[in-house]
């Protein structure tokens, strides 16, 4: 079955009102379960390639294995659960919903994120939360270099060590209420432990050009 036939089948089954769709032997193929824009349940038994479960609005997708780049890209709503590790750019530009990674995530996790929650049970790579705009990234383990580089808003919570902060990012302490909420979230997702999460947020120093031209000053 080609990827095109597979995705067509998935969408047709949802149209026909299937309660749950199970995909066996995904063979780490790219672009599985792309563009499903309705609530439904899909289980993928095995590892997937790039762009798995991307461009979604509504579904609940569970993947038993690893994933390539850009898992859950542009998610609008719904939930994606990955049992093992994700490649680079997981949750790129996600706008809502939840993504749970049972293992580690690669570079640029939550890049350009615009809403929702990305929860990573393990570590995440460099440039996590790069140019993030809104939403939450929760990393229970460590984060690589340049964490939260050029982020606008939103929060990165980190339980472990951070190799370095990115431009315009800073640490803040989490409040007790935040910690209680985060721990409850870990428990809901079956993640053991109660890390004392630190927050990474924007310093907001890049929000504006420092100066305007003389004429612009009179206009803007």
């Amino acid at each position, binding site marked *: 079955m080609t990827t095109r036939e597979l995705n067509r089948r998935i969408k047709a089954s949802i149209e026909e009102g299937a309660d749950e769709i199970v995909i066996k032997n995904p063979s780490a193929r790219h672009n599985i379960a792309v563009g499903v824009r309705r609530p439904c349940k899909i289980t993928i038994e095995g590892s997937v390639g790039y762009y798995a479960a991307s461009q979604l609005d509504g579904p609940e997708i569970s993947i038993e294995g690893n994933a390539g*780049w850009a898992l859950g890209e542009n998610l609008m709503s719904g939930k994606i659960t990955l049992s093992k590790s994700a490649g680079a750019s997981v949750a*790129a530009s996600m706008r809502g919903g939840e993504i749970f990674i049972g293992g580690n995530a690669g570079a640029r996790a939550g890049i350009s994120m615009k809403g929702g929650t990305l929860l990573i049970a393990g570590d995440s790579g460099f440039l996590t939360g790069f140019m993030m705009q809104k939403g939450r990234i929760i990393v229970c383990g460590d984060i690589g270099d340049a964490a939260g580089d050029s982020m606008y808003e939103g929060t990165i919570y980190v339980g472990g060590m951070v190799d370095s902060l990115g431009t315009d990012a800073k640490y803040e302490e989490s409040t007790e209420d935040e910690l209680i909420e985060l721990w409850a979230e870990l428990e809901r997702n079956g993640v053991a432990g109660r890390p004392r999460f630190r927050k990474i947020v924007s310093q907001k120093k890049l929000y504006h050009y420092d100066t305007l031209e003389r004429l612009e000053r009179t206009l803007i």
Partner: protein
Amino acid sequence: MVYGNNQIWSQWTVDDIHAKADLGRYRIRGMSTHQRVTHFDDLTFLSTGLTRFPLEGYKEQCSTRVELGGLNAENPLVIETPIYITGMSWGALSANAKIALGKAASMVGTASCTGDGGMLPAEREASDKLIYQVLPSRYGANPNHMATAQAIEIVVGQGAKPGTGGLLMGVKVLDEIAESRDLPPGIDQRSPARHPDWLGPDDLAIKIEQLREATDWQVPIHVKLGACRVSDDVKLAAKAGADAIVIDSMVAGTGASAEILLDHSGIPTVPAIVLAREALREIGLYRKVSLIASGGIRNGADVAKALALGADAVAIGIAALIALNCNRDIPESDFEKEIGLPAGQCNRCHTGRCPVGIATQDPELVKRLDPDEGAERVANFLNSMTMELALLTRSLGKGDVKSLEPEDLAALTIEASVMARVPLVGTDKVFGT
């Protein structure tokens, strides 16, 4: 010491240094490059005489309809004139401007295109054929919106600022715009230059497949490139699976760009089209992958020359804005007072103070542009250009704009001969070959 006829230290250069000495950063403006470049004016058509017969201007048919992106899409983009409205963001432009452009496109049976900021629902309603851009920023990106589009355009680069992302000054990032882009209101928005989910051409091939899957293989996937290393970029985009390639040249317009990029990066439209054509030909995809050219298209002759050089269609930005009243004194406007320059010299789209309601988010200024009247003007302009194009085509003895070819052209300068690969007038010689 300076000024006068001094080539190096011109008045402009001196003013520029003064401005930067005040500012401490690069300068930003809208519109397009100030560089002098070889352009369509340097080419002329060799119309009919005794060797070929013309078609009658107003009687004989001349088809202007083109189909774009038919390689993989079940529903290629069919437009009645090979001129469509390029992607200009709702944010850089007012909602009224976007609606007017969408309506105008529908009135003449062509397409309009979204921009960096997502789809304005009212533009979707106004435009029968809407191209949906997928940009590095992904502001407002929504698969539900994308699914309604007639074509998808992955923006790799723009001619006015290749290698950088969009720019929108805080004065234009007001409530509705900030909300739709998920940005804090009032920030000077500097969009990413790289896509968040793919980097090189191998990834792009997977991204294109993803967008096809997301849209069920129904609509074409375009790739827009800023014209720099045209030959390689075009081949890589075509190999990655693009159905159409938009080549946007160094003279292309912008709502806001660093001036240094506007003036010092990219190549002009004429050589960009020729290099893209030859690149596609080399890999056997010329006329299979559609070629769309943009940058400085102003009238039907520019369109005809772009087509003769090898483009299947063109996209227009600034020309459509001028038809909407950009740089025109209208009764409500006071250019000198409101934007600091007389009508005809304005390039201050980035300030958000557009005196004619086009490049602004100020509710009072936006009112100066009536979307219906604006649509009428842009539709008239599109029709005029299409008539000019058909007129030239018939004068060459051809009944279909798709039959225009390089042999119809001659170059007025040696540079144009080299770049367009057509003979210099008065000679049989194609210089540089």
